[in-house]
């Protein structure tokens, strides 16, 4: 049994580099602006111009190839599916037709063009998001989200959930290992029964832990609200870097799309 989130991207966010040092609020703003501009683009050129530097950034971080492949594989599959759906289903200028017995599949040039734009947008937006995840620690992102005026309750719940995922994960891994050595996953019926027991056990541990956690929080003067440390004042250097990135994004967009972003 291999739980899928064995490698959270923010594991790599502790590595020292320029992007990691940049203020988390600014990283979030740049990533959202970049992704928004990519989504608003109607040609593939602008997304490709963002995709290039983002991929270079990922390569410079020297992430494990295995992790990057696992992250990209679903998105590549989705991009190919978008190409196929648009190319074969919509359009009026046929490129070629594949005879398939009594029916046929026709590839359309205009449909394919739409598909390419959609696929490139998908790959670029995904790469930007992946880059954000690997250069920003989780707690910084939560603070940035609170700074962006997300409801405080939501951020509190997110922080507590994040903390206890790893506590419960240790328990889940122990139970799964014990089940495995007792041949709990031999055959689909036993596998399903073992999975159900595992899920139920994780729930019981969570409910037990919630009581203990609340008591521990009360002992630390918890009064229905988690205190947040104040965010540091933004440095001139960080602000300048952010303005530089935003100007680059806007300029690329204007050149490629022939119109202003806003």
């Amino acid at each position: 049994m291999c739980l899928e989130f064995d490698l959270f991207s923010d594991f790599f966010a502790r590595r020292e580099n320029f992007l990691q040092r940049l203020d988390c609020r600014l990283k979030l703003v740049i990533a959202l602006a970049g992704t928004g501009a990519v989504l608003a683009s109607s040609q593939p050129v602008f997304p490709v111009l963002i995709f290039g530097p983002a991929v270079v950034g990922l390569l410079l971080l020297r992430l494990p190839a295995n992790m990057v492949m696992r992250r990209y594989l679903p998105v590549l599959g989705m991009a190919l599916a978008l190409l196929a759906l648009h190319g074969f289903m919509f359009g009026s200028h046929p490129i070629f037709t594949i005879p398939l017995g009594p029916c046929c599949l026709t590839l359309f040039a205009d449909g394919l063009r739409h598909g390419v734009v959609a696929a490139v947008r998908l790959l670029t937006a995904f790469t930007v998001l992946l880059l954000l995840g690997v250069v920003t620690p989780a707690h910084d992102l939560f603070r940035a989200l609170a700074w962006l005026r997300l409801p405080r309750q939501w951020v509190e719940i997110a922080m507590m959930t994040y903390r206890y995922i790893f506590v419960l994960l240790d328990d889940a891994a122990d139970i799964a290992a014990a089940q495995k050595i007792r041949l709990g996953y031999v055959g689909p019926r036993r596998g399903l029964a073992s999975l159900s027991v595992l899920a139920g056990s994780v729930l019981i541990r969570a409910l037990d832990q919630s009581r203990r956690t609340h008591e521990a929080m009360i002992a630390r003067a918890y009064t229905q609200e988690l205190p947040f440390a104040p965010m540091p004042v933004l440095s001139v250097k960080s602000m300048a870097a952010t303005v530089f990135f935003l100007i680059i994004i806007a300029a690329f967009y204007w050149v490629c799309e022939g119109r202003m972003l806003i």
Partner: protein
Amino acid sequence: MNIGFNLTGSAVRILAIICILLILPAPASAMHISEGILPAPWAIGWFALAGIFLFWGLRRIKIESRLQPEYKPFISLVGAAVFIISCMPIPVPMVGTCSHPCGTGLAAVLIGPGPTVVLASVALTFQALFLAHGGLTTLGANILSMGVAGALAGYAAFQMARRLGLNVAAAAFLAGLAADWSTYAATALIMAGALHGDGSFFAMAKVILLAFVPTQLPLGILEGIITAGAYRFVINRRPQLLQGKMEMGGAA
């Protein structure tokens, strides 16, 4: 642009099979709409709609927190547990691959649909930021499909089953099944809305739904079995634990 609809029924099926083959390497993330798929107006629209349900869920949590001081740690821990459960690989027999449960049916049965929407939004944010499943711009759409459709369908199925006199295991099975299938149906409709371009919305929705069928029909049943098994396990082992928590807004 004219719609290239010279496709016959069997061609649509073939196209659906092609799409399945393309998506197969990652069925685990098929339930989440990937970053960048939705055009900006659609992404904003789904965010606005999801915001209404999130507001409702947060309000429920606020009210419950006033009544029960330990409510926030409780739902946070349930969120962590459901997140872990939703990452457990389930073998999908028909296509010989693995997928994972939504977990929203189980959460809705335990804590009610409103807080489940909030927990789903938290889980989806984690998956977008740290696992590269889903995305930030598609968060609204994903909250609607997984959090809102899944939670409401699961909760409604559980309540109806209990009122019809079914036992808790059968009701939990239906909750898991309904939550899973409704999540994928909502995902297909949202994607069709964004991707159909100048073509037919219904044709696109049909193709996407067809692409989901081979994996998601059996997966829904398997999720129902796991939901029922987990719920029954907790009821048998620690009924008092669940009973106390149910008073905080759960379904039983």
